[in-house]
């Protein structure tokens, strides 16, 4: 097993392709940082890149990007905006550090598959088999494998995000304390 997710075994979606260094401010620009509703954030997703993503994105679409996706500011709402669009996952050559953590923490599946990024085109359909750890571009024979995440990251993903992960740990701890108290 490569990528355990509580609810997801397979991902399939239509690709939106972006370049290198897509910064978090392009994903969710400054004027919208005051919004709290995920649906409203979604209306402005990728607006800083200057295309029609937010008006044309469909549920289960996949964002594909180059190096350093999500660089710049730590704004977690960039991840929430992507989730609000019901994007099924993000595949990039590499992720910026804080964006990576924010994605895992909010249950947004992310994958680093550089060779797939090089070979995929806008509009292609990509399928990911999480259980066996590979991705394919529809109509293309090649199989692109990807690395397992370290155990703690797998655990956070498996629980659906950091809040459910930490909640479970806190409840276990509370249960033990109650037991000892008796």
């Amino acid at each position, binding site marked *: 097993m490569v990528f355990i997710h509580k609810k997801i075994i397979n991902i399939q979606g239509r690709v939106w392709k972006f370049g290198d260094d897509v910064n978090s*401010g392009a994903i969710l620009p*400054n004027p919208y940082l*005051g919004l709290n509703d995920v649906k409203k954030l979604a209306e402005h997703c990728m607006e800083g890149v200057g295309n029609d993503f937010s008006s044309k994105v469909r549920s289960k679409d996949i964002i594909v990007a180059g190096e*350093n996706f999500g660089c710049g500011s*730590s704004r*977690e709402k960039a991840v929430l905006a992507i989730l609000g669009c019901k994007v099924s996952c993000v595949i990039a050559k590499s992720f910026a550090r804080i964006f990576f953590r924010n994605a895992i*923490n*909010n249950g947004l599946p992310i994958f680093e598959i550089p060779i797939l990024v090089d070979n995929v085109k806008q509009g292609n359909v990509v399928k990911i088999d999480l259980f066996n750890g590979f991705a394919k571009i529809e109509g293309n024979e090649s199989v692109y494998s990807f690395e397992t995440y370290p155990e703690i990251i797998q655990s956070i993903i498996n629980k659906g995000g950091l*809040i459910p992960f930490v*909640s479970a740990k806190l409840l276990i701890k509370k249960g033990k304390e109650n037991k000892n108290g008796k």
Partner: protein
Amino acid sequence: MGMTATEKIIVKHCGKNSISVGEIIEVTYDMIYSHDNAAPLAISQFKKLPCNHIKDASKVSFFFDHCTPNKDIDTAEHCRVIKEFAENQGIESLYEGGRAGIQHMMIPELGMVTPGDLIMGNDSHTPTLGAIGALAMGFGSTDIAAAWATGKTWLRVPKTIKLLFEGIPRKWVSGKDLILFALRTIGINGAAYMVVEFAGSTIAALSMNQRFTMCNMAVEMGAKSAIMPVDSVAQDYLSSRVTKNYTITNSDNDADFAEEIKFKVDQLEPQIAFPHLPSNVKPVSKASHIRIDQCFIGSCSNAWLDDLRIAAKVLKGHTIHPKVRMIVIPGTPQIYLKALNEGLIKVFCAAGAVIGPPTCGPCGGNHFGILGKGERAIATINRNYPGRMGHPESEIYLANPSVVSASAVLGRIASPEELM
């Protein structure tokens, strides 16, 4: 084999005797801080957890600096929510109104950080504090909420990349120019997930203000954090601000660095980052034809007293070009007061600049000087991605404060050499 400063600090905070690069460990922290923009999400995430109280409220601080004094109703609501939460949790360390300043500057100024500390901040420029020899890292709001509840977070032990600076910089060349030059070489992702450690005779001769500037902008290389050796300059800075004991945790001479890159700085000119990447850096002589509409001195990168002093030195006796707006924002109330006492604010006003209260201001495109379509700014901030300071079709050039001042007078990007 010896340890890097980063490894020593992680060992201190993880309860293990030794660690290896790439290993994932859990660490405790000495301080965790957030601000008006990011804290509301951290608070709403915290409220989803099955615990009522933050594990250690004495380690928590809030700084209202991004969109304050409240720029609109949303911000006012954010601040109200944070204050209610702070009161509920017994958090006293909260700075707003006339006590507020830019978070990454307030913390060292108030003696809240010491060498060897491990610090979590809810902002990407938290590594600024590395100039004090602390390991300070930025996190998103959910990581902050979880750390409030558990007193810990997980980390992958990073590699350290050493940037060695040798030589004596020319006049008008400062820490800002050194880090911009390094960005040009290393690129926007060149230090990804690593800690950048600065060393060398050039660094040793820098003031603390300029060291903070360099650690601040190391983030733009993709770094996890940045750190500097604690020497007599740093200890001197700490002596008037910190009362508690601390242990210096500088890197051992035989520590294992992933890479070492040397920079000779003697011949450098002031550097300019052109739109739209902080690594798109050229010497100022390549920029002198570029007309500008707005000049900004401020932000957690360069709102220190040293920055205001040098800006005022260049500006004194001149007036700002009639087609240029200049905005100056001292980083903290203490800096503002010192600038007043030294006559710097008078110089800025007499020249025709706008002075703002201590806040991030226009840096993140929030308030106090947003750019319109096609406008161009030269600023002492740390990022120049499209739309950073306003309209997506505006442009930002990054520079040191003396260059920004000279540019304000001449109406185009200029070295202070042209004025003096």
